[in-house]
């Protein structure tokens, strides 16, 4: 197009590439190296210790404590979020009046920041001013909770047994609308003729859903699963804002991200913290590859 195209290419690419190299690529690369040092941040001296941090990590009970919580989230959050959002998306596509209203409403929590959501819910869970404890006692749920081994209605965020259920519930509450919109977009892209053909073959609503909608949604489901799984491995902002650090529920709510943040910016163990961060990254990478593999099937093109 131009005589010397590099006169265009270089100045157009330069700002993006330079910023990206300096603030994104360099820190990532540096992290990999830092995890092999016992750096405390005070001096520029960074003693090389090889895999020592990783060895220490494996013996660190608090690391396993945090990791086990991520795994619990991983087990429940994606499954519940995706089934619930798929279910709601299916209901909304049943040509009912007011579907526009539901579509807009269910997405609400997604546009409010995680921080506002976290603060908001920590007051809903609050034992004296919160609305949830009051609701539970109005519904006479006290005996039910006693049956489960609680003294009465649990103090949600203040009880090690319920703190993760509470946080997980908030995450699901916020995410459902997002995945629902994702599924709705994919469902609406399915040509109507497919359903008409299915109806001609005598398929009822459930059969239509099971044999037409679901197979054609598979790609979107896969993406959604990877997203939700990675989300369960993060949980930083919501945990950080809902749990007061150093409180009795601090440790029971720990996840890898909050634990590594604490190790880095509160305990100044930078080398150790980056070792945890590198492990977190490798686990997330393995998790996405694993999810993609396990859910891979012949995708149906249309």
């Amino acid at each position, binding site marked *: 197009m131009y005589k010397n195209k590099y006169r265009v290419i270089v100045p157009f690419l330069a700002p*993006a590439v330079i910023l990206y190299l300096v603030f994104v690529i360099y820190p990532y690369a540096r992290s990999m190296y830092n995890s092999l040092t016992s750096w405390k941040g005070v001096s520029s001296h960074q003693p090389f210790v090889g895999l020592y941090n990783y060895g220490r990590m494996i013996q660190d009970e608090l690391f396993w404590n945090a990791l086990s919580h991520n795994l619990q989230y991983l087990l429940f959050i994606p499954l519940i979020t995706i089934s619930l959002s798929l279910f709601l998306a299916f209901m909304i596509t049943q040509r009912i009046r007011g579907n526009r209203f539901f579509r807009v409403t269910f997405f609400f*929590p997604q546009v*409010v920041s995680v921080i506002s959501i976290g*603060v908001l819910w920590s007051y809903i869970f609050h034992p004296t001013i919160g609305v949830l404890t009051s609701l539970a006692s109005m519904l006479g749920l006290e005996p039910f909770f006693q049956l489960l081994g609680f003294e009465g209605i649990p103090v949600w965020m203040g009880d090690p047994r319920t703190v993760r259920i509470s946080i997980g519930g908030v995450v699901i509450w916020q995410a459902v609308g997002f995945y629902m919109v994702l599924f709705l977009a994919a469902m609406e892209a399915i040509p109507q003729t497919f359903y008409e053909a299915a109806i001609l073959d005598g398929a009822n609503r459930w059969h239509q859903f099971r044999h037409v909608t679901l197979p054609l949604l598979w*790609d979107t489901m896969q993406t959604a699963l990877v997203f939700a799984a990675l989300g369960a491995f993060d949980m930083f902002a919501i945990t950080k804002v809902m749990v007061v650090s150093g409180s009795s529920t601090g440790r029971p709510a720990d996840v890898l991200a909050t634990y590594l943040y604490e190790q880095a910016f509160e305990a100044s163990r930078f080398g150790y913290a980056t070792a945890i961060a590198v492990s977190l990254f490798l686990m997330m990478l393995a998790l996405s590859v694993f999810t993609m593999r396990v859910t891979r099937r012949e995708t149906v093109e249309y």
Partner: protein
Amino acid sequence: MVDKQIALSGEKPAGGRGYARTRRKIEDIVGMFWRGIIYLFLGFWSIIVIFPMVWVIGSSFKTTGEIFMSPWLPPAQLMWDNFARAWTKAFIGQYLFNTLVVIIPAIFFTLLFSAMAGYVLARFQFPGNRFIFYAFLGGMLFPVMLALVPLFFLLDSMHILDSHFGLILVYIAYSLPFTVFFLTGFLKTLPNELLEAAIIDGAGPFQLFFMIVIPLAKNGLVSMAIFNFLGQWNQYILPLVLLTDSNKYVLSQGLAFLSQQQRYQNDWAGLFAAIVIVMVPTLVVYVLFQNQIQRGLTVGALKG
């Protein structure tokens, strides 16, 4: 739906008129029952979504005394003073100002730099083109957690730690991967003829870019502006690590800080008002631009 099902399924009512009528009636009842169940579920979830927000808005007008009395009672009087306190004494106004100071330039330059890079990557062939494209794409794989520690010390050594300028640069850098990826795809679809005609008319490369390419890419740029606005507005971990001076806090960080503080100061009413001030504007913007925002936010997950 039900009627259509009968019509399309090809089943002819067998037992004459009376049978057809009964059958129609049964179908109607089943249809109503089905509809009822759908509304029950959808209505239930609507309440679960809306109630917490309404409750916070209601509480933000109460006095702290009323908040402790009962979570259900409406405020006796609308305490507008809560909002004034949240705005000035709790510094929500300051945090909002800081947020705007950071994200307006951050979004502007994210879009500009990404469009420039995307334009070159989409429309010029040169060795390394694919490599640079995939290098940007690869950035999306890494969690920000992994970069935090080196980023903190990098900004410290550049003397831009604890400054809005430093945060702006970091926001731009971390918004680049997806924005470049998206805009490269978008700019590939521009019609060639238009660009060539402009070159023949003697447009220089910068003229071409700003006068022709940018206006043509408007829709893509708007999507990315919304996507990055919500991402940067809600960003928490980067400011948490990179800004330590509480006068410089951005909104999300300030609200989190406030809620941890207020636990000791006991101005619950002010805190509820603060949440409302942070929450309501984004909800209003969302209701006004719901379609673009739903598309803008889910665009990251949908296949290109």
